[in-house]
């Protein structure tokens, strides 16, 4: 193959990195939602998830800094994805006018969805770091009571907007990744796109509903804790989960 100069290789690398970082983040957010929604099973289940990420089941004791490290890694991944995605944003008033005029004329679903990806992506530039800095700076404040208190007392508007922004941005992004990279030789393109689109809307709806139920569960639990700020959860099954004194020791 004729040689490609090193400088010319960057567009390919950046395109792959944008797709790969988006794929990793979207899948992480789905796993994250399942983990967070453990509160719908029981307080003990959510407590066990929190302890899992503090390394308790591996090391025999909790290391909250592991959560800080994970939050920092996710923030770096978001920064990378945002820097790469910014290349695709309209770059001037003229480009915004041209694209919005085109979108409003065409009434074309995939074109309109891209605009929603731009809007939700822009929101996430600001909202995701707000949440992540909390996780980074107070990693020990994750648990049935601590999280519920935070949701009820201050954070529920942030989490509500984050939920819609993430679940729309992620599902649209995964749909676009499939269209961007995959060929479907056994099926006509319109049929496959219709199925992928249905799957995309289904995933968004499923995770938004799961997220709303989860948020409501934290909110309701938090409303019962207003007189006890800083109250920590004591698991019912003592043999499987550490006590607060163990965590703090």
């Amino acid at each position: 193959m004729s040689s490609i100069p090193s400088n010319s290789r960057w567009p390919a690398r950046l395109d792959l990195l944008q797709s790969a970082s988006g794929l990793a983040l979207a899948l992480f957010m789905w796993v994250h939602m399942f983990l967070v929604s453990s509160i719908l099973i029981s307080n003990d289940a959510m407590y066990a998830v929190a302890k899992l990420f503090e390394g308790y089941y591996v090391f025999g004791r909790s290391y909250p800094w592991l959560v800080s490290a994970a939050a920092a890694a996710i923030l770096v991944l978001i920064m990378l994805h945002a820097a790469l995605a910014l290349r695709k944003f309209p770059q001037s008033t003229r480009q915004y006018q041209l694209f919005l005029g085109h979108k409003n004329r065409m009434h074309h679903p995939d074109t309109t969805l891209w605009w929603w990806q731009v809007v939700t992506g822009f929101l996430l530039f600001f909202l995701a770091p707000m949440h992540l800095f909390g996780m980074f700076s107070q990693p020990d404040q994750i648990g049935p009571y601590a999280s519920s208190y935070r949701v009820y007392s201050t954070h529920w508007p942030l989490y509500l907007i984050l939920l819609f922004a993430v679940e729309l941005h992620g599902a649209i992004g995964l749909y676009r990744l499939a269209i961007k990279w995959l060929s479907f030789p056994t099926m006509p393109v319109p049929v496959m796109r219709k199925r992928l689109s249905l799957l995309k809307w289904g995933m968004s709806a499923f995770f938004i509903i799961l997220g709303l139920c989860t948020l409501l569960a934290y909110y309701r639990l938090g409303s019962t804790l207003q007189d006890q700020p800083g109250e920590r959860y004591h698991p019912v099954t003592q043999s499987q989960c550490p006590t607060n004194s163990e965590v703090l020791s």
Partner: protein
Amino acid sequence: MTQDSKQRIPVNESEPNSRQLTFEIFRFNPLDPGSEPHFDTFTLEETAGMTLFIALNLIREEQDPSLQFDFVCRAGICGSCAMLINGRPDLACRTLTQALPSTIRLAPLPVFELIGDLSVNTGKWMHGMSERLQTWVHTETEPDLDAMEAAMEPALAEQIYELERCIECGCCVAGCGTAVMREAFVGAVGLNKMARFRLDPRDERDDGAFYELIGHDDGIFGCMSLMGCQDVCPKALPLQTQLAFLRRKMAFAGI
């Protein structure tokens, strides 16, 4: 509508339920300093099997001879009559008025140079794109014009022919959010041509050579997969398949 046009469109007896169509047509003559961009309204009575080609010719013949629009083949082959029909690019000659609401808004394709009213210079854009992407068979050896042409597998010939069906009408460019925003983007028509020459065994360029032509943000990596091209292509070319294929090949060649 004039009395004359009523005489020439005898619809009322045979088609009592025919619709009155309202056409809102973009008007602007860039060569006339006094011309301002605006929409003119025309009305016509719909006839059976009426296409926009028929309707526009009736308007020009009977209501406004200065109306500019392009047609050659009337059969969806030449690609001259592409325009925005109620906001979406399509070929006017293949669009039946019965498939549209009674108010039809016609505008020239964006991106391309406006000649006047609905007429745009797609040829100039296509020529520039072809020169940039070098859309012809490249070979190191001088072809022997007296020799028998090398045989090609029928399946491969079919594959190439499928992509060669592109008529360069410009619909995919006008339907693409990226092309509308970024004038240097080569569009699905250019990328489809690259896919076509990459398939052709007579073209001796390898993926490194193709990467030099389209391995950048105005080429395959500029495509944001909005799929406007796929959805408006009047020839129903498999553009998504080709774009994804090229993206994989060029990403692999470039990393």
